[in-house]
């Protein structure tokens, strides 16, 4: 194990953990899903580091690609906000994705 390889592993793992926290804490679902796609691609790198190229191939195509497409589609349907309840305010359009999940606005 070379020093730079070890550093790379720690960096990769740190990013994975940080992304996981960010995905689950993210208010905007669209952003959370984009972060999740990045997470899937970094997982594919982790599989390569662990000498599992079979899994890396499947993860890159399925984990990041198809799961990401499914999630993006679902978020688009739910208008992309983490506020899960029907509010009395007029529902947002596509721009609702860009605003913070401030239910009082």
């Amino acid at each position, binding site marked *: 194990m070379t020093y730079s390889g070890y550093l790379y592993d720690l960096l990769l793992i740190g990013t994975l953990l940080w992304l996981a926290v960010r995905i689950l804490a993210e208010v905007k679902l669209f952003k959370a899903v984009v972060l999740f796609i990045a997470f899937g691609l970094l997982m594919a790198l982790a599989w390569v580091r662990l000498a599992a190229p*079979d899994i890396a*191939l499947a993860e890159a195509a399925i984990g990041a690609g*198809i799961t990401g497409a*499914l999630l993006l589609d679902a978020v688009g349907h739910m208008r992309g906000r*983490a506020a899960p309840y029907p509010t009395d305010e007029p529902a947002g359009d596509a721009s609702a994705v860009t605003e913070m999940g*401030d239910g009082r606005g």
Partner: protein
Amino acid sequence: MASAVPESPRGVRLAAGALCAGFGVLLVRAVLAIPEDHSGLAPVVAERLVDSGVKHPVTAVLLNFRSYDTLLEIAVLVLATIGVLSVAGSHPRVWAPVAEEADPVLSALARLLAPFMVLASGYLLWAGEHAPGGAFQAGAVLGAAGVLLALAGYARPAWVTKFGLRVVISVGFIVFLAIAVGVMFLGGVLLEYPRDYAKALVLIVETWLTVSIGAILVSLFIASASPIEELRARTGSGR
């Protein structure tokens, strides 16, 4: 974090935090307690690799040594597809293209890329015999090609009937099950491939699995991507 986001009550969060922390400690201890001085099952697999019909250990495990897992896996996939089609797929517009007005650049790119993705899928299927690859990776690439085409506005061609699609979705499982049971008539037990035919049988199963997995992934995506306008009108929310 914005206060407007609904959160669980503080008690639930504290209890969940305590539970997760305790569980994490146990998990780390359990993982580190696994002895390192064993050799796992790798030598066993390597020793019997000649019997499997393929040269790549992971493919050998998936399609021969532990093919029971794989048989049940494709069953799960077919069941999940049936579930998605039942929950979301009854809408009359489900099989319409996802994008109403396709971006011309995207649609040209998809037209260009799709044949290469099919080619890559075929390569991965063949490479799985001796290198990383195999039915699942090949099926994933095939499915990704279909999703790309759907996103670029290409509809299901008229010659792909709904019945035909269902046949393609289930053909991998049917062929796998037929071979699994068929070898019992040659004197073996369920899924015990005769050594001389192992390679051919694994390849047949893998080929049909690839086709099925590709069709399943595309169907999961397209059936799930049903339009929302009608749903909004029904619930009265939205505009």
